[in-house]
């Protein structure tokens, strides 16, 4: 076996695996079971989980991400601190050696940039190391599974896109139901959001059974009879009118009695089957939504009839057409001298039947959509997405939902990066003042240059340059903040987009890239803070006088 054949076999294997995992599974198997990847709603500010959480501040998922990173660090510090009590022996243990290697590498790297100032300046090394380690933790946390994906399900907000929803595997949990690949979601508007909230948030009703309009009418009449039996007002033991929960309990109790009385009476067995075992709320909801459901059921019935008609018409048309074609061919072969008139008629007929078929096909498509929507609306009054029978069997909810993740990367929120940038630039000014005293501010407001104007008229330029330094300092804040935010946020968007396109294997590449970007950006933030600090500490005021002496 030559190297080429072996290579071909390996290549074939790779190709096979690639087709299975990047083609068949994400585009056929996963959508088939409702597991295709949804495109998340991408928002720049952190998404609010709990409004008005603490002192009027909303709890956003980026805050949760930040707190998580902090907790992790505190935990690590606590454990290491406890372990480090034994780190006094001459030959270091493995953990100690590892920690020392990490700290030393970082220290040496920073020292290469800052020189002796790293050691002599108080708190400089702790500051930059903290920035680096915190950002590194936060950026790596962002890549953990479940972050930016697991969250609270809610109706898609108006103006965003949503998907079908289905119950999850455990009790009070849900997941999105995406049954076609590369489906970017369905646009939600305000009326639809309200309809969705009525079902999901306010729990105004449980999904109803699929029924015909007659059945609905019959049953709602039965429920109306039962509810009419209830007394007008409910009074407590002391004769006062009941309110709230007490009223509801009393009503429910009265309903039970009325229902029993009703069932004991002489009623239609089909009605009994449905009415039996219902409670007050169900009966109430049934009557409330009966009208809307009757209308939907009528649409459903009408559309189904029309669809059946179209199907037969289309079949008939296909039959005719097929026959004609054979006939034409037969004529053409047996009778080569077919008159041109005949041919023209045939062509005209064909065009005619094509147009009819197209029109019927278009109508069939709209009808199918109508039927799906009507079916959904019989089960869920006011449903906004069509339901196929298969989806109905799977208990798919035909409203538009999406997920707000519980945790999102800390640095994907501009608030954190901006705050961190402000802190580091303020500390840079502090270091500058500590090293140079009030003379530090000559960098911005160059008073000595103004004083030396008689000797060096060009000092005026220095003064203007100093003013520009102020802008540069603000620019540094913006630049630090946007660099970190931009890289991390864009990374998150890239991950979402690539996972949406090809669910398996391909995102691994982006994950690798994200690990590198997360590390480099954390390092860059720390390094820039260090470099700016060192620059601020350097003497600059009387450089020119020295220069003048030298030359």
């Amino acid at each position: 076996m030559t190297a080429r054949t072996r290579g071909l076999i390996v290549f074939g294997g790779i190709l096979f695996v690639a087709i299975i995992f990047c083609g068949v599974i994400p585009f056929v198997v996963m959508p088939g079971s409702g597991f295709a990847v949804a495109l998340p709603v991408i928002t720049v500010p952190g998404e609010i989980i709990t409004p008005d959480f603490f002192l009027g501040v909303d709890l956003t998922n980026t805050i949760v991400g930040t707190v998580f990173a902090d907790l992790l660090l505190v935990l690590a510090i606590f454990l290491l601190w406890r372990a480090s009590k034994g780190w006094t022996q001459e030959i270091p243990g493995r953990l100690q050696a590892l920690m020392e290697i990490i700290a030393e590498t970082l220290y040496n790297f920073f020292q290469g940039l800052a020189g002796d100032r790293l050691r002599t300046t108080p708190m400089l090394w702790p500051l930059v190391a903290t920035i680096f380690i915190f950002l590194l933790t936060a950026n790596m946390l962002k890549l953990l599974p479940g972050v930016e994906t697991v969250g609270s399900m809610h109706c898609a907000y108006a103006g965003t896109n949503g998907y079908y929803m289905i119950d999850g595997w455990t009790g009070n949990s849900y997941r999105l139901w995406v049954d076609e690949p590369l489906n970017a979601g369905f646009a939600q508007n305000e009326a639809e959001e309200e309809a969705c909230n009525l079902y999901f948030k306010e729990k105004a009703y449980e999904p109803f059974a699929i029924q015909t309009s007659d059945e609905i009418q019959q049953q709602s009449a039965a429920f109306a009879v039962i509810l009419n039996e209830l007394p007008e007002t409910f009074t407590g033991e002391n004769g006062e009118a009941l309110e709230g929960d007490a009223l509801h309990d009393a009503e429910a109790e009265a309903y039970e009695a009325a229902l029993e009385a009703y069932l004991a009476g002489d009623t239609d067995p089909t009605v009994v089957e449905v009415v039996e075992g219902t409670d007050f709320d169900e009966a109430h909801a049934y009557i409330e939504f009966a009208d809307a459901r009757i209308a939907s059921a009528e649409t459903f019935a009408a559309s189904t009839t029309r669809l059946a008609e179209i199907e037969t018409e289309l079949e008939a048309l296909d039959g005719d057409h097929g026959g004609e074609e054979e006939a034409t061919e037969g004529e053409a072969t047996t009778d080569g001298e077919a008159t041109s008139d005949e041919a023209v008629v045939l062509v005209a007929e064909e065009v005619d039947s094509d147009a009819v078929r197209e029109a019927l096909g278009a109508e069939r498509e709209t009808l199918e959509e109508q039927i799906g929507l009507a079916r959904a609306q019989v089960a869920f009054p006011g449903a906004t997405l069509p339901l196929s029978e298969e989806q109905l069997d799977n208990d798919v909810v035909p409203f538009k939902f999406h997920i707000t993740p519980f945790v999102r990367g800390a640095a994907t929120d501009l608030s954190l990066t901006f705050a961190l940038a402000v802190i580091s630039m303020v500390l840079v000014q502090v270091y500058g003042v500590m090293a140079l005293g009030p003379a530090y501010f000559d960098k911005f407001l160059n008073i000595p240059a103004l004083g030396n104007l008689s000797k060096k008229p060009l000092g005026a330029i220095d003064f203007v340059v100093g003013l520009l330094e102020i802008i540069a300092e603000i620019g540094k804040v913006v630049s630090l903040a946007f660099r970190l935010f931009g890289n991390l946020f864009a990374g998150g968007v890239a991950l979402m987009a690539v996972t949406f396109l090809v669910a398996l294997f391909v995102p691994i590449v982006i994950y690798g890239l994200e690990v590198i970007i997360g590390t480099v950006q954390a390092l860059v933030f720390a390094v820039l803070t260090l470099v700016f600090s060192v620059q601020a500490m350097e003497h600059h005021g009387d450089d020119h006088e020295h220069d003048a002496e030298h030359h």
Partner: protein
Amino acid sequence: MIDGSIEVGLKAIGAGLAMVGAFGPGIGIGLLAQGAMQAIGRNPDAAGTIQANMILAIVFTEAIAIYALVVSLLIVFVL
């Protein structure tokens, strides 16, 4: 046949145009890397220092591309 609102299209065009800002930094990073490579070629012993400084300078240059990226992200997701 075009469907959907014209706003979305204009936003997309705007976001795309904003990314033209990546043009300059691209050239800049290329020049930086070229300079660093030449320097390492002439003085291989100084490779460590040159690399560290090169990365720092690249990050400064890249910041401008990131501004463009942020602007286009803001156009798409915030406006």
